[in-house]
């Protein structure tokens, strides 16, 4: 692996930023104190923890006490949904809660919802998306019930990048809120935080999920914004950390890393334009150079760094392997590459046949992606597609 790879899978994970890494380093073997301790080493750790919390709170425009650190977006999403349902059921044992979500959520939302439904613990409405992978905000209003306790919608999709009308949904929910606070609005911003405004006041949300490793921070760390007064019960019990909502000794190095990564996310607009320009170049040239390519979703209504393309008569995993041979890292929604052997539910939700999903590849650009890298991809891609289409023959 001495060869430099062209990494176009930033939606899967990002490298830890150098500045972030430097900030994390002291917290492994020098400033290793437990923030709960009373001696100097511990109070230094406590200070670092509280500073990190402030930074994340600033990014979201909320109070530091409304930030809860978790092990990542998967845990944040699970905690948000399961924690709300648990609390509601404790307080309203006679009523089955109703939840609204979309059919293109990340598995850490979708599978939680399906499990709750299957176990009979909640009623769940999965909102349909358009061909562009976007829900209709009005549907949220349409499906609200007296027992709706949560609406959970991702800010932007991880496979095709489609941006959801979360501000509009926030408004709808705000004006339909009961005195009890229900329904609450949760946004999974794991994929969007890099590019979109995450001010919780503007979004009108009660809960919001962040992930460290999608924003050039470390893996294994995330945060959940929980608006003061949001009724949620913890899923694990322990020593009282994170206001008893998520106990366990704080993963301080990672928390500091997450905060440092968040601080680097300032002024998104210029950055977004630049990356969108490269992404559009990738799409436009690919369409010119290669026949029978379909763009999945609508890039102009999506995150600026994602291009999801289907190459007819080519299977995604094969294409990923071929590109990997040439030093290019991408991913696919093909059933052949999934553990479940089912095509990507996101791609089928936007109307793709299993065959079209079979031939899909996601390119996701990042901070360091250069024009030269995209041009190298554009040089390699037609040849690789051609070879696989030759193997496909008359099929």
């Amino acid at each position, binding site marked *: 692996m001495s060869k430099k790879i062209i990494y176009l899978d930033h939606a899967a994970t990002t490298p830890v930023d150098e500045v972030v890494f430097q900030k994390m380093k002291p917290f492994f073997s020098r400033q290793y104190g437990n923030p709960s301790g009373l001696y100097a080493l511990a109070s230094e750790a406590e200070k670092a923890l509280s500073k990190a919390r402030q930074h994340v709170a600033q990014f979201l425009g909320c109070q530091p006490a409304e930030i809860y650190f978790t092990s990542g977006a998967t845990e944040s999403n699970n905690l948000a949904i399961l924690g709300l349902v648990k609390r509601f059921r404790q307080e309203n044992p006679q009523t089955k809660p109703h939840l609204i979500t979309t059919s293109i959520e990340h598995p850490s939302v979708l599978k939680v919802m399906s499990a709750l439904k299957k176990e009979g613990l909640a009623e769940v409405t999965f909102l349909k998306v358009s061909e562009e992978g976007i829900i209709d905000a009005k549907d949220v209003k349409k499906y609200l019930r007296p027992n709706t306790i949560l609406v959970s919608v991702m800010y932007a999709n991880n496979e095709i990048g489609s941006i959801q009308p979360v501000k509009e949904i926030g408004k709808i929910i705000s004006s339909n809120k009961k005195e009890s606070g229900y329904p609450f609005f949760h946004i999974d911003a794991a994929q969007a935080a890099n590019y979109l405004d995450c001010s919780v006041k503007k979004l009108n949300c009660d809960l919001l999920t962040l992930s460290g490793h999608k924003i050039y921070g470390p893996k294994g760390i995330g945060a959940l914004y929980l608006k003061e007064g949001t009724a949620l019960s913890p899923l694990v019990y322990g020593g009282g950390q994170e206001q008893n909502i998520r106990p366990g000794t704080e993963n301080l190095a990672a928390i500091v890393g997450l905060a440092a990564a968040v601080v680097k996310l300032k002024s998104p607009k210029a950055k977004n334009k630049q990356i969108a320009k490269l992404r559009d170049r990738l799409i436009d040239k690919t369409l010119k150079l290669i026949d029978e390519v379909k763009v999945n979703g609508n890039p102009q209504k999506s995150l600026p760094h994602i291009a999801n393309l289907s190459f007819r008569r080519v*299977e995604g995993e094969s294409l990923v392997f071929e590109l990997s041979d040439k030093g290019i890292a991408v991913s696919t929604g093909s059933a052949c590459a999934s553990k479940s052997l089912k095509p990507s539910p996101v791609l089928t939700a936007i109307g793709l046949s299993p065959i079209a999903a*079979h031939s899909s590849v996601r390119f996701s650009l990042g901070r360091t992606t250069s024009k030269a890298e995209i041009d190298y991809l554009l040089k390699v891609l037609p040849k690789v597609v051609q070879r696989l289409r030759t193997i496909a023959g*008359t099929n």
Partner: protein
Amino acid sequence: MYTKEVIKHFRRPKNLGPLKNADVCAQVGNPICGDVLKIYLKVINNKITQIGFETIGCVAAIATSSMITELAKGKTLTQAKKITFQDIAKQLGGLPKVKMHCSQLAVQALQQAIKIYEQKNKS
């Protein structure tokens, strides 16, 4: 996740492409995952003298297509019918468990081709 032998067959598949003078061609597909596979046979005196394949599929599907054509070439129809998924997997140095169903397509395609050939030559 794949063995060297699998990668080798994926990179340089054997017996690739259709046969112009094929006696039979069978196509099988897996509607769930989307893999499609075609096998062509030229048969002389109940022996497979030439064989070709065309596959839309993952690395495992392409490699098993290539390997089954290698295993079937020169065999009698009776012998070729006995080629199992396990035989192919063994020759390829193993296949990931999750790839079983892609890989079984190759066996299905060969058996289908032989079946069609035998039916044609009965009547």
